[in-house]
C-alpha cells in the first residue's frame, strides 16, 4: 500500500501541513469519488427508474450498478441492499419495522454501553413502546464485549441483539460472528452496526450470518447522505415498509395498495442518485487498495502512536489495545475541548466530546475524550507530528496553569 500515492487522491491533503485524524467522524473524499458525483450533475442530473428515454436509462444503469457493486463488496444479493440516508437511518429502519412488529411485552433486546446512540436509541424506543426489556452486555474491565459476557445475558426471551462491530470510541472489534451464532441458537435476530467496520475491514454478511447490517458511505471515502441497510431477503420481504409513497408500490387504489419486494419496498421517493453513484465509486476505490491492507496500515499507525504516547507523562489513553485506528485519550486535567483547540493550531484535526456514545463516556467516568483516528491516507509523519503536538500541548497547558 503506497500511502504517498494514496494521499495524492485526496485534494484536501494538498495542504501538506494538515494532519487529518477525524476519519471516525467522516473520512476525506478522494478525487475519483468527487468526480463521479460531479459527472452525474454535469452530464445527467435526471431521475432514475421512471424514465424510458436514453439519459434516464443510462443513469438508472449506473445507479443500479452501484447497488450490485456494494452487494458484491459485502457478499450480499442485489435485492438485499437497501439505500438509506446513512447508518443511523438503516439502524432505525430495522427497529421501526422489524422491531415494532415483532417485539412484544416481556421480550428482551440485548445492546451494550459500547454502542453509538444510533445503535442503542432506536431499541430504547422500541423497548419503551412495547414494554420490552433493554439488556446490557456487561463490558470487560477494558470496555470490551466478549462472547462470555454475551452468554451471561442471552436468554430464551431475547428477540433482538443490536451490537456494534467496531466501537467508534474504543476501536475494539467485537466477536460478532460468534455472538450471531449463539443468538441464532436462542432464536434471536441480530442487527450489526457496522458503521466503523465496513470502512476498515473486509466484511462478508453471509460468513457472519448476520440478519441486518448497517453502514454509511461518508466514513469510507463516499458521499454524504447515503448508507446501506443489508438484510436477509426473507426477512426483508416479510417486513412492513416504514415509508410509503412513490416507487415502493405495485398497484394503488383508493383504499388499498400492494408493495414491491425488497429493496424497492423500502425506498420510496426519488433516491439519492448522485450519492449512490458516488458510493459505488468509493467501494471500487477501497477494493482496489484492499480492505485487509487498510486495516493493517491503520492498526500499525495506532500501535506506533500508542507506544510513543505511553511514554509521555500526563496523558491517559483509554483503549491501548484498540484493534483498529482509533485512540481515545485525554491530557490529564485539561478539558478535551481546550486541548483540541491546541491541536487545531498545529493543523491537526481531531475530535473532542462524547462522540455520540455517551454511555461509554459515562462508563469511562470522564466528561469527554479526545479521539484520534487513522485511515488509509495517514502516514508515519502524521503520527510524529501528532505525538510532537501532544507533548507540546501538555507542556503548554501546564504552563498556562491547568
Amino acid at each position: 500500500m503506497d500511502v504517498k500515492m494514496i494521499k495524492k487522491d485526496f485534494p484536501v491533503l494538498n495542504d501538506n501541513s494538515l494532519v487529518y485524524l477525524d476519519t471516525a467522524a467522516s473520512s476525506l473524499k478522494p478525487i475519483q469519488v468527487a468526480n463521479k458525483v460531479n459527472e452525474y450533475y454535469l452530464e445527467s442530473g435526471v431521475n432514475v427508474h421512471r424514465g424510458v428515454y436514453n439519459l434516464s436509462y443510462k443513469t438508472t444503469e449506473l445507479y443500479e450498478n452501484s447497488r450490485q457493486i456494494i452487494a458484491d463488496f459485502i457478499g450480499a444479493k442485489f435485492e438485499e441492499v437497501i439505500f438509506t440516508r446513512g447508518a443511523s437511518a438503516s439502524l432505525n429502519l430495522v427497529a421501526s419495522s422489524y422491531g415494532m412488529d415483532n417485539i412484544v411485552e416481556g421480550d428482551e433486546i440485548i445492546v451494550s454501553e459500547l454502542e453509538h446512540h444510533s445503535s442503542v436509541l432506536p431499541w430504547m424506543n422500541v423497548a419503551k413502546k412495547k414494554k420490552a426489556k433493554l439488556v446490557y452486555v456487561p463490558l470487560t474491565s477494558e470496555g470490551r464485549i466478549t462472547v462470555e459476557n454475551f452468554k451471561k445475558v442471552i436468554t430464551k426471551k431475547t428477540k433482538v441483539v443490536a451490537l456494534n462491530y467496531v466501537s467508534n470510541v474504543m476501536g475494539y472489534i467485537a466477536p460478532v460472528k460468534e455472538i450471531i451464532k449463539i443468538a441464532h441458537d436462542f432464536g434471536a435476530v441480530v442487527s450489526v452496526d457496522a458503521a466503523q467496520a465496513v470502512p476498515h475491514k473486509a466484511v462478508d454478511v453471509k460468513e457472519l450470518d448476520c440478519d441486518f447490517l448497517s453502514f454509511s458511505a461518508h466514513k469510507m471515502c463516499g458521499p454524504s447522505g447515503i448508507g446501506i441497510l443489508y438484510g436477509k431477503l426473507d426477512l426483508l420481504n416479510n417486513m412492513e415498509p416504514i415509508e410509503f409513497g412513490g416507487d415502493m408500490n405495485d398497484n394503488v387504489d383508493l383504499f388499498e395498495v400492494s408493495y414491491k419486494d425488497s429493496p424497492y419496498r423500502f425506498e420510496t421517493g426519488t433516491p439519492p442518485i448522485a450519492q449512490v453513484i458516488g458510493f459505488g465509486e468509493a467501494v471500487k476505490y477501497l477494493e482496489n487498495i484492499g480492505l485487509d491492507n487498510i486495516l493493517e496500515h491503520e492498526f500499525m499507525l495506532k500501535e506506533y502512536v500508542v507506544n510513543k504516547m505511553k511514554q509521555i507523562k500526563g496523558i491517559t489513553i483509554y483503549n491501548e489495545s484498540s484493534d483498529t485506528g482509533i485512540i481515545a485519550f485525554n491530557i490529564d486535567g485539561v478539558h478535551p475541548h481546550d486541548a483540541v483547540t491546541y491541536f487545531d493550531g498545529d493543523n491537526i484535526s481531531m475530535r473532542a466530546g462524547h462522540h455520540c456514545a455517551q454511555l461509554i463516556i459515562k462508563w469511562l467516568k470522564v466528561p469527554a475524550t479526545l479521539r484520534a483516528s487513522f485511515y488509509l491516507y495517514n502516514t508515519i509523519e502524521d503520527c510524529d507530528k501528532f505525538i510532537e503536538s501532544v507533548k507540546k500541548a501538555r507542556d503548554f497547558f501546564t504552563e498556562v496553569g491547568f
Partner: protein
Amino acid sequence: MNNLEALYRQVIMDHYKNPRNKGLVNDEKYKTVHIKNPSCGDDITIQSLIDNGSIKDVRHEGTGCSICCSSASVLSETLIGKTVVEANQITQTYLNMLSNKEYDEEVELEDAIAYQGVRKFPARVKCASISWKAFEETLKEE
C-alpha cells in the same frame, strides 16, 4: 504572545482555577436558567437575583472547558452590583465583541475583556458565550 496564549490569559485561568460565586442556591427569589451544548458537553446553570432594578447576586454551576467555566465566574464578578440596564448593556457588548460584530468600546467590560482572544477561535465563541446567554435569559424571565 501568540493566539493561544492570548486565549488562555491569566485572568481566565485564574477564574477557571478559582471560580467566584460558584454553587447554586435554593432560593426561589433567584431566576435560574440551564443551558447545554450537547455537541461538546458544556452544561451551565446561571442564577440571578434582581432587586429594585439591580443585580444583587449571580451564581453558577456546571461542567465544561476552561473558557466556558471561567466565563461564568467572570460574568458573576462583573455583573454583581450593576443595574439591570448596565448588565444588559455589558452582556450585549460582550456578545457582540465575541461574534465580531460592532460593539460600543466605551462600555466597560472589566475582566470580561480578557475574552477578546476568543475571537481568533470561532469554534470556541460558543464556549465563551453560553453562560452570558443563560444570564440574558434570567433577565428575560422577569
